[in-house]
């Protein structure tokens, strides 16, 4: 990394000296860490369900918010702005999810005289609507996939979708995060699937409009991190590959992508920077692409916020992306150009989910009785959950992110296996054992995966047969940890037991 990111910015000239984080969990912790590192005051809002979490503990000030559900409280922009005013916060960082890509919130924050750490409302509006974003990007001369857009002529939407041909993918226009997306392989089911997609879109986004696009078989998901200052300067911060997914949601993300050669890398990264430049982008952002097996790629969407998987980019470039967001929001220029952004090594992020991979990746809940995060050189653990906490159904099942940096991909995989082994979390089933099986799979080792890889290889998710030693170890340890069993055993004299074959 060049020298410019290693030196801390001078915050004394910034228009704010406190930042309210309008989020929860690991991302609230992540943002607070940089806010406090810079000497700014970190404030967080929280719902009662999050009272015992790390973000609330580490914040300089924590303000309780309420709502009909825990999620609803984090979506209540008016209440959050009131909390910001009450605490004198000069800026609001929305994290990801919740209000991070809500134009109305962004406008309300700025109308209240508070800096929104993000893009302009117009940029949220443009990129938040997938259809408008797609049309804009296409007009600007960048590649997009064949599609049918309901808004263009709602009466003929089904017909036009049929013409795009199977397999196709139905998506909510206002969507994101895989919600409401459906693959249609049999066009006889098209109308039925459209109705389901519409219902989900309506519920999640309050907007039932849809669009269909050609489903690229066995595609890879490659995205590019960009940074813009809204003052004419945009750089890309290389790509991330996020092809290992279940239900359209990412599980493992890495950089550099094993799929790209140097020429392809430059082309896709420059395309992303070009899209960001075309809209005069301000903030950290991510341009997502669908990457076909022949090396063709199409614009998917642009996320105008910090991404869950941003740490892998930070690990190989040394750039603190949250710091860059804060600088830009404070009115600073980037102050560097593309050639100043360099990388070294390889980084992989694993999303540690409370879920049972063998049962269709269904979420699990439970208390966090014991938590011993892995440690060591190149091991980063981003989490908002602490021992004594609880994983509930109230929020997303992501417990933590384990980020591994290695000198190359093989080194990172080897370190990851060790770190996953050493991750101790008891009380709630997690996917760590599944992740170890995944990274040992020859296709993953070879970097040869696509977004349907886990569906095509269900044996990775299946619980392997248990070794006899393991079973005996578990039964032994469990027996001695169970009062009625231990008491009975200890009540029988050694001599009697020594005769052997004691049972009923």
């Amino acid at each position, binding site marked *: 990394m060049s020298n410019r990111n290693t030196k801390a910015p001078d915050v004394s000239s910034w228009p704010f000296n406190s930042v309210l984080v309008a989020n929860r969990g690991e991302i609230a912790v992540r943002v607070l860490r940089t806010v406090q590192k810079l000497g700014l005051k970190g404030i967080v809002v929280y719902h009662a369900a999050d009272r015992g979490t790390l973000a609330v503990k580490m914040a300089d000030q924590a303000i309780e918010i309420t709502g009909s559900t825990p999620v609803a409280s984090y979506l209540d922009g008016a209440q959050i702005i009131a909390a910001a005013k009450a605490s004198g916060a000069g800026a609001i960082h929305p994290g990801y999810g919740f209000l991070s890509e809500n134009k109305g919130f962004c406008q309300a924050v700025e109308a209240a005289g508070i800096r929104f750490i993000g893009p302009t409302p117009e940029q949220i509006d443009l990129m938040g609507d997938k259809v408008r974003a797609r049309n804009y990007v296409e007009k600007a001369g960048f590649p997009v996939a064949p599609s049918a857009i309901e808004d263009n002529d709602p009466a003929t939407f089904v017909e036009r979708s049929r013409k795009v041909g199977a397999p196709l993918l139905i998506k909510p226009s206002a969507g994101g995060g895989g919600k409401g997306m459906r693959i249609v392989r049999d066009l006889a089911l098209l109308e039925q699937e459209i109705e389901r997609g519409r219902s989900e879109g309506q519920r999640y986004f309050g907007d039932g409009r849809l669009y269909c696009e050609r489903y690229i078989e066995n595609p890879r998901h490659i995205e590019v991190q960009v940074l813009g200052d809204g003052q004419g300067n945009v750089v890309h911060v290389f790509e991330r590959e996020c092809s290992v997914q279940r239900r359209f949601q990412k599980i493992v993300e890495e950089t550099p992508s094993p799929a790209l050669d140097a020429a392809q890398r430059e082309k896709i990264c420059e395309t992303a920077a070009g899209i960001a430049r075309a809209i005069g982008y301000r903030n950290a952002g991510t341009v997502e692409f669908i990457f076909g097996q022949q090396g063709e790629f199409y614009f998917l969407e642009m996320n105008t916020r910090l991404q869950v998987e941003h740490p892998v980019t930070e690990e190989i470039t040394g750039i603190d992306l949250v710091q860059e967001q804060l600088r830009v929001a404070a009115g600073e220029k980037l102050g560097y150009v593309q050639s100043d952004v360099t990388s070294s090594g390889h980084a992989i992020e694993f999303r540690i989910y409370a879920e049972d991979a063998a049962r*269709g990746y269904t979420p699990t809940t439970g208390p966090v009785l014991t938590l011993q995060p892995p440690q060591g050189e190149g091991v980063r653990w981003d989490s908002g959950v602490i021992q004594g906490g609880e994983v509930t159904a109230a929020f997303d099942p992501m417990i933590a992110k384990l980020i591994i940096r290695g000198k190359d991909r093989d080194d990172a995989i080897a370190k990851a296996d060790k770190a996953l082994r050493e991750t*101790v979390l008891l009380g709630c089933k997690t996917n760590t054992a599944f992740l170890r099986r995944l990274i040992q799979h020859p296709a993953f080792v070879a970097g040869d995966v696509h977004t349907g890889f886990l569906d095509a290889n269900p044996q990775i998710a299946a619980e392997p047969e248990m070794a006899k030693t393991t079973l*005996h170890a578990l*039964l*032994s340890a469990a027996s001695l940890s169970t009062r009625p069993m231990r008491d009975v055993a200890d009540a029988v004299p050694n001599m009697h037991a020594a005769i052997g074959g*004691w049972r009923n």
Partner: protein
Amino acid sequence: MHHAFKLGDAEHNLEISRGADGYRLHLIDDQTVPFDLKTGADGRQWLTLDGVHHEVVIATKGDDVFIHFDGEAYQLRYEHPLKRLAAAGGGAAEDRVMAPMPGSIVNVTVKAGDAVTKGQVLLVMESMKMETTITAPRDGVIEAVTYDKGQTFDRDALLLSLVALEKKK
């Protein structure tokens, strides 16, 4: 065998007894395995099994025992002898509709007293950002509906029950 643990879907019957050197695990197949569990001065726990030492991390909550062993976490549930006896008396699984995963109710289309037919939609739940439809396991009459629209529940929560067939006779 008086004691049992549930591990995954399997039930394991066993006993333990004191041995000359620690404990012995007695399994249903007549196998006996010597073992011991010791806590070091640093609080780390070591399981000795057949003379081999393994580091383990153990946590308990109620009847649940959570164990980190050889890089993986496991959950075992102690099955109380009385409860097992009661369960053996005959379950009416078809009378009870349980949640296949944690989630929340999107819509309930039936109420107590409604007659339903096998396969009829009873409710729509939401989990993992997707909708799942729950249908009637058999023909019958709804006895009770546990949750209203918008309420959340954990895995294996009782969502609905049907009037037991015996009662109707």
